């Protein structure tokens, strides 16, 4: 009975952790799926989003949930700047991204990751900080759930659903989907490819930074300049699991990872749990390169 309780509790926490993983990876997924570029500095923008939550809490008393939209707005601007600084030259007038351009963007965003994380150490110091946000707990049968984590999980799913609705139901969303399929098709829909690609990138950054804010609920003393080095790889694995460009894929990948990590932790050590979670990637790439979702 006790074992069953533990497993149910772990499952509940795993699912909630999975939700926040999903939203953290979702921004990467949007950019990867649409403009076919993998932002190696993804983790650094999660980190900046988390610091956004920390500073807005410190100076304005905002909770991480309230910071998320502010972070998203900043993320939009950063995303546009990122597109025009790093991607525009490589992507314009190209129907598909070449291996050459892929190398260039990998290397350039890798440089960006080094730059941002070290700038952050200078600005924020290396000492970890946290946001204190605790709206209480909720009792579900014998499972006690912290409300903060529950809110974050719900908001994460809503964000993913929101981006999905945006892509499915709006004109500009359909232009983005067209771009993802075939760049020249964007023009047939009557949209400017560069505008579509930059918007998709900006949206990706908005979600990434908002995700960073939501993540702070899970890391009460873990906001630090180098946190990107953990959350970027987690995001890579999630997007590959779900399949780049599939909006619900982020959730599938995130939940898979969250549950695997939380359940394995119950039986072995945290290290083995993380090792296993990372290694899932290899068989998936070998046997289901398109991701788990059809």
């Amino acid at each position, binding site marked *: 009975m006790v074992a069953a309780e533990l497993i149910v509790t772990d499952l509940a926490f795993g699912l909630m952790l999975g939700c926040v993983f999903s939203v953290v990876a979702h921004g990467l997924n949007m950019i990867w799926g649409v403009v076919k570029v*993998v932002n190696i500095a993804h983790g650094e923008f999660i980190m900046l989003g988390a610091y956004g939550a920390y500073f807005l809490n410190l100076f304005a008393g905002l909770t991480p949930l309230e910071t998320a939209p502010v972070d998203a707005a900043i993320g939009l601007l950063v995303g546009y700047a990122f597109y025009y600084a790093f991607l525009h030259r490589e992507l314009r007038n190209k129907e598909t991204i070449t291996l050459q351009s892929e190398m260039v963007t990998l290397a350039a965003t890798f440089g960006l990751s080094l730059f941002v994380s070290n700038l952050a150490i200078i600005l924020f110091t290396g000492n970890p900080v946290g946001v204190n946000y605790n709206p209480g707990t909720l009792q579900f049968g014998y499972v006690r759930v912290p409300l903060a984590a529950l809110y974050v999980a719900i908001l994460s799913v809503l964000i993913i659903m929101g981006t999905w609705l945006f892509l499915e139901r709006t004109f500009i969303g359909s232009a983005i989907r067209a771009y993802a399929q075939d760049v020249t098709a964007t023009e047939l829909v009557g949209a400017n490819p560069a505008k579509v690609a930059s918007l998709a990138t900006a949206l990706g950054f908005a979600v990434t930074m908002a995700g960073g804010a939501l993540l702070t609920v899970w890391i009460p003393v873990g906001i630090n300049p180098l946190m990107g080095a953990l959350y970027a790889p987690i995001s890579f694995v999630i997007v590959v699991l779900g399949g780049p460009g599939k909006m619900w894929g982020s959730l599938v990948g995130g939940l898979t990872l969250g549950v695997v990590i939380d359940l394995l932790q119950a039986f072995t050590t945290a290290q083995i749990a993380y090792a296993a979670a*990372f290694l899932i990637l*290899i068989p998936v790439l070998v046997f289901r390169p398109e991701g788990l979702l059809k």
Partner: protein
Amino acid sequence: MKIEKPGLTLYGLCIVMALLASAALLLGVAVSSILLLLLIYAALAYSINFITGMMGYVDFGHVLFMAIGSYALATLVSYYGANPLLGVGLGALLGLVFALGIGLVILRFRGVYFAIATVVLVLAAYNIVLQFPQLGAGGEIIFNLTFQPLATYFTIWTIVLIEIVLTYYVNRSRIGFGIRAIKNEEDAASSVGVSPRTLKLTGYMLGGLFGGAAGAVYAWSISGVTAGPAFDFTFSLLMLAMIIIGGVGTSIGPLLGAVVVYIPSYFLLTTVAQAQPLMIGLLVIIMALFLPDGIVGLLRRSNQRLRLVLE
């Protein structure tokens, strides 16, 4: 393999290596410990050059081979009291063997998928090493050896020399043509008879071999290994930065890159520790976006004669 007559680039590199050797002999321990680290950087840069530089497969996880080499030497020396040279040999061998095993699986992935797989493997390996008490269980393995700076120095010097000569001749040989074809257009390469699987595995194993050897010497030079720093991505990133800045795939680029990355770090470390990676990050961004062939490419374009001479 038919050996072609060497060109100016190789002579130049050999002169630099000769200078490095005599500097250590003449100027003594203090200088040699500065140059030692430079040579370790260079050895790492040449080792990743076989993979990322020549084949175009971006390897963010190259530090894995370095860690394998470090652990090989540390274990052998601290538990069995073996000669460190034996440890370097074992590091190289294990690097090669792991590269074979890993390469068979992940070289099937292309582009960013390969890059991500390499990241994931390092993280997984790190977490696995933490489980083994024999490997220090996340702590450190330290050993006490009599201070022997020249032995360490000339070991890594020899490794770099081998790497330079090998890089130079591989680039000019039949294999070099095949590898460059793969880097340019893998499908087309196999449509003219190149076997990408074999060649990619060859390149990857060379990278593993020298990465392991350099990692072993690194552990030797700091008399031990600690899990955290051993698997620190910073090393992977520095290696990549060195070849991107120097010029990917060339035989002179990795050494140039090592100098550019290392020398400022030596002076900046005393002021702001973050200034070095900050500058390197900025430099990598600029190089990647505007000078994809690095310093070597820049020199080649600036002068017709250099274009023919620099390799």
